[in-house]
């Protein structure tokens, strides 16, 4: 059986004004259950793509399909029900006056019965490590804590597609790891959940199923992490990060120390410390 495609972009172009083209003829497919990372320099058009997929922006050309259904004015609200989006700045998506109210907001919109709500809120708040904060006022939370609440609110609605627009970029390393582990755990429970993560975290991209690289509004690379990261120099040219040992090897080469080039700490120690 052919695999389901959850999100498909077909020749999408978009500009914030008539004179400019911010997205230039981009096409890619995301399979159901896939963990896609979208990477590119600041201003490359990554966040614009997220807004196009959710129908928050309307493309100039091309089609966006969600589970095979082309998005139109008439079905955008219906299609959006399957999509959870978490933005970079949690302050822009906080609605409730307490953490509990905020997670409840999406559930209320979905007409979840009140007696079920508390259990769902408790469950998802616990999953993101915020269950002790349910009665706190969002304005008194730190940026990272707010983001965890936003993630809980989105996940509580059981979306089929979860879009994360740099949503871990404000978390501390431990918090970031925690959220990424959480997303992986949720994917284990729900293997059909499609994740589209816009990120600068090269390690996250490395651990994903599928990487799309955007530069200046164009798609540059599209493939598995191994395929995409094969050409380190190209990645650097595109202002992107590369793994530590690839960087180290480039520097060693520059200093005529190529014989010490290594792909792991062990082999570096072996070559250098005899």
């Amino acid at each position: 059986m052919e695999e389901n495609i959850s999100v498909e972009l077909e020749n999408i172009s978009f500009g914030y004004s008539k004179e400019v083209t911010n997205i230039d003829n981009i096409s890619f497919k995301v399979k159901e259950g896939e963990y896609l990372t979208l990477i590119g320099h600041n201003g490359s058009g990554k966040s614009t793509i997220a807004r196009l997929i959710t129908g928050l922006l309307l493309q100039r050309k091309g089609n966006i399909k969600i589970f095979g259904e082309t998005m139109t004015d008439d079905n955008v609200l219906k299609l959006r029900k399957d999509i959870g989006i978490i933005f970079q700045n949690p302050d822009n998506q906080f609605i409730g006056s307490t953490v509990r109210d905020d997670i409840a907001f999406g559930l209320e919109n979905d007409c979840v019965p009140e007696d079920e709500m508390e259990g769902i809120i408790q469950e998802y708040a616990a999953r993101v490590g915020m269950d002790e904060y349910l009665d706190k006022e969002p304005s008194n939370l730190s940026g990272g804590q707010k983001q965890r609440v936003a993630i809980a609110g989105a996940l509580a609605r059981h979306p089929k597609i979860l879009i994360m627009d740099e949503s871990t970029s404000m978390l501390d390393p431990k918090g970031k790891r925690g959220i990424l582990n959480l997303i992986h755990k949720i994917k284990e429970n729900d293997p059909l959940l499609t994740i589209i993560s816009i990120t600068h975290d090269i390690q996250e991209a490395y651990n994903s199923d599928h990487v799309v690289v955007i530069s200046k509004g164009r798609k540059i690379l599209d493939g598995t992490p191994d395929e995409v990261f094969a050409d380190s120099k190209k990645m650097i040219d595109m202002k992107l990060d590369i793994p530590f040992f690839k960087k180290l090897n480039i520097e060693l080469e520059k200093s005529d120390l190529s014989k010490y080039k290594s792909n792991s700490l062990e082999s570096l120690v072996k070559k250098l410390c005899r």
Partner: protein
Amino acid sequence: MPIKLKDVSYTYSQKTPFAFEALKHVSLDIKDHSFLALIGETGSGKSTLVQHLNGLLLPTSGEVQISNYMLSIENGKRKYVDLNKSQNKKYRKKQFDIRNLRKYAGLVFQFPEYQLFEETVLKDICFGPKNFGATDQEAEMMAKEAIQLVGLDESYLSRSPFELSGGEKRRVAIAGIIALNPSVLILDEPTAGLDPQGEREMMELFKKIYDAGKTVILVTHNMDIVLKYVKEVIVMKKGEMLAHTTPLKLFQDEKFLINTAIEPPFVFKVARELIDNGLDIELDKIKDISSLVKEIERVKHE
């Protein structure tokens, strides 16, 4: 003049059911011409602390002194004392205008790009200088200088801030503070969400400002930045200051690192591993990959 915090505590929403003590008895000295990073988990009080450094928050208890400006709350009232004036009998009023402090210590918030509001980048950058009494012409000069410092060219000045990318907006917002030429520049997570090149350019800019004799204080989660750029580091946890030390000492204190869940930069771990296996490189020279390679080169050519 230095920055001194004396037994500073801060409680949000005091006397309400939401009361939350974000800073607990923090005492701290920051010398002139410091390059300092504040680190700690989310919610540890870093942002609350930096908002005390330009008088945006006043301590619930304790005193904050920035240069000659002393801030505290006495009997529920804000107290701004200019120490230069308080020691001089010819001044009857000892207070200072809070704007003088805001000009002395410029604070760039987390996600400053969300604070842009003017029609053009030029107007946005000029807003601060004009508030502090600059003429239109002076403000425009300051804006032109500031926009170049943050790595954008003058053509950006006539554009709308809202058509810029996130990274460009961030630069414009930082330019708005740099235009004021503050003696102390405070930045709350200035590189979060920037691509690696943007991060490097931004940090080089702050280094330039530090090299020009200013104090730079930044909140960050990025240990590579801590190792490579700053001279001092303050570790916060649950509102308390756990350490005020150097990056080198911090990253060598394994017990402390485990307790605070801080991970040293990978390049530092690599360097230590090489040293432990007998390679004669100097740990205090290791700032990033290229300095590691330089040390390897030195050792191998000796």
